[in-house]
């Protein structure tokens, strides 16, 4: 089964604007290194991973329980995860998500696209987490990629660039894609002449889309990363931005739209790179503006340190707002990088050893997405 929510196709609303999501997470590749099946003729240096099986459910959880957009509520969640998992649903209980093999992906894609096309004001939401490769085009690998039994080794492979262009055929005028995968070109790809993939859908020049936004977990030629057995860093950044760090206040509401998300994601990834000392980058490609989500409150990633490494080494930094206190004492790592409430915060920088003058606590306004500071000493 691939429709996780609602519980049946009959309950999918098609006559009103809805956000229809298709989430794919692939953490089981039988034909790649360490896999349980016959090995691909060239596994391309790819092995088993675990982060997608945490990332996809986390995205699903937010979509079902966290997404809020009165003009375009969640309409459906189509989901495929390898290895197959049970996904908790809001009504209680769990729904099984089928494995993300190519045949299942094609079937689910067709259903998802049909739902998206049911109303021009729908939002088509696509999230893929798993192995990815790039050779001019971006390829996303389903579970059964590299099956040596097939004459065409690239038969089970999604050509994402063609897919995105092809989605212009879909009637939904807002289309949002998240590619949480690597964009490397392994040597083995260069020696193969017929590298290809299935675009899943095709369009023509008469097809248009008002807003098409793609957010890539990394820049071309680079890897995407995640902690073992947890959500990928890009996934963490996406969720954090959707939940408020990517928010912009329009009137009385906080809004995350395609522009603000693109702007926020890059800045958040930069802070994650600092915190984890990893080469994290991301790459938004946004055309057209559309509202995705209305978080209840805004959040900010605060990255606070002194103005020099020498000062950091002898400083204590305390952030406070009401009863909330965040601190990095002497000897603890700096910068402090934490996701906090937006608004006014007090930052107190102290030098217990007296190496620098005394600076009184200062008030700063933390506005999404990122606050970096402070000019002390």
């Amino acid at each position, binding site marked *: 089964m691939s429709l996780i929510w609602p519980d049946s196709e009959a309950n999918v609303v098609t006559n009103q604007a809805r956000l229809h999501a298709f989430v794919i997470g692939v953490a089981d590749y039988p034909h790649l290194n360490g896999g349980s099946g016959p090995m691909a003729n060239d596994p391309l*240096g*790819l092995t088993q991973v675990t982060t997608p099986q945490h990332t996809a459910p986390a995205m699903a959880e937010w979509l079902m329980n966290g997404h809020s957009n009165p003009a375009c509520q969640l309409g459906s969640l189509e989901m495929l995860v390898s290895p197959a998992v049970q996904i908790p649903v809001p009504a209680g209980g769990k729904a099984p998500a089928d494995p993300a093999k190519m045949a299942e992906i094609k079937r689910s894609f067709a259903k998802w696209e049909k739902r998206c096309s049911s109303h021009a004001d729908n939002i088509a939401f696509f999230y893929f987490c798993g192995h990815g490769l790039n050779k001019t085009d971006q390829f996303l690998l389903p579970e059964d990629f590299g099956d040596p039994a097939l004459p065409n080794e690239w038969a089970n492979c999604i050509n994402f660039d063609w897919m995105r262009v092809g989605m212009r055929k879909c009637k939904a005028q807002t289309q949002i894609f998240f590619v949480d995968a690597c964009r*490397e070109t*392994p*040597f083995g790809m260069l020696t193969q002449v017929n590298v290809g993939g299935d675009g899943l859908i095709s369009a023509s020049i008469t097809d248009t889309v008002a807003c098409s936004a793609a957010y890539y977990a990394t820049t071309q030629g680079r890897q995407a990363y995640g902690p073992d057995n947890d959500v990928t860093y890009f996934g963490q950044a996406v969720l954090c931005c959707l939940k408020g760090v990517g928010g912009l206040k329009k009137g009385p509401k906080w809004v995350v739209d395609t522009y603000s998300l693109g702007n926020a994601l890059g800045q958040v990834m930069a802070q994650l790179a600092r915190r984890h000392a990893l080469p994290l980058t991301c790459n938004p490609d946004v055309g057209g503006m559309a509202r995705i989500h209305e978080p209840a409150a805004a959040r900010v990633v605060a990255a606070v340190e002194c103005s020099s490494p020498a000062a950091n080494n002898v400083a204590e930094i305390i952030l406070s707002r009401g009863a909330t206190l965040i601190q990095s004492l002497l000897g603890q790592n700096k910068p402090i990088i934490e996701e906090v409430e937006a608004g006014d915060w007090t930052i107190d920088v102290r030098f217990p050893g007296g190496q620098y003058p005394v600076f009184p606590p200062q008030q700063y306004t933390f506005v999404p997405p990122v606050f970096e500071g402070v000019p002390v000493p």
Partner: protein
Amino acid sequence: MPLVFVHGVNTRKGEPGYEAQRLLTEKFLQKHLKDASINGKAMATVKPRFPYWGDLGTEFAWNMASLPAGQINALGAGVEDDLRPLIGFIGDVLADPKGAQAQPLLTLARKSLLHAVRAVSDLLLRQAKPADAESVASFIAAAQAYAEANPQPAWLAAITTDQQFINKLVSETATASVAPGTQALGLFDPVINPLSAAAAKLKGAVTSAASTVLNKTGDFASTKLLAWGRRPLNAVLGRFFGDVFVYLDARGDKNAPGAIPSVILGEIAQAMQDGPAGEPLVIIGHSLGGVISFDLLSYFRPDITVDLFISVGSQVSHFEEIKRFKNSNASIPSAQQKLATTPANIRHWINVFDEVDIFAYACDKVFDRVRDFRYDTETYTIKAHGAYFEQGRFYQRLRARIDQLP
């Protein structure tokens, strides 16, 4: 432990492979010599120094244009010069080299995993850029250890392509390539790319050779191999003699050491200063590096006491036979003294040679107090001279010899 490794001929920094080779040697030395005891002193820390004198070596005015080419090259025009010995070696190892064209590495691995590991290691080292050096050196050390411990792993029978072999070998020997606790949604080990490229190059060379050399000669007979391999062999010989002449011409004397002695003596002095105190001083000389080291210890600086001198693939006894050392005594051998005297400041001396290595000489028939030991690199002529330090087995045997010292 102050340990100085003096390189031999044809070593040029900046060329592909230099840094990877150096790192590989360092890794093996650290792994195998740690806690060895010499003269009652323990090697608690192994931090080798690698004095570099390659930029002071020979140069060829016409880039070795004097080497004849022509008909011999037609035998294997599609194969680069320095790959030919390797291709020939593979052909010698395999019963049916022509049949190995499709998957040469896998075919070789099924015959001998260690040979296959050495073949790819050889290719990797040739091409390894400084940025790749660490991952290449780590892979080679790990892959060799794996192949020695698992000469015929079960998975070899289950795979069918060279690419699968590469991937499987790396996954069996993988070291962490990203931060602990982090995984990449992509290549699991950065060494896969250069390794895949090396395998592709090998396959291309084997295919090319099979379509020309075999057709013309019918087999890889050693004489044909030698003819086909003349260019690379001559290149090695040329550089060897060139570096020897440069050293002999410009070594200077005790009061005014030449450039090469100065560089190496400087590193020895630094190694002694860095210590730590109480650990043995060890000097390893490879090829001409052994000759130079011996010259330095016997003439330039007889005041430096070396706990252990190790000459590997070296020509020390040969130079003594032709009396080319500064302190060579022309009157020896004589009725009174059959063997030349090993300098007193060399407390122990181990000399290693491979009989296949045409640049390596035994010493115990020329010098007193030297311990010769034969080491079989199990490779081909041109390769043997450089192979010692690429093989974990060599360091294991060396350690065993060190442990046997009084």
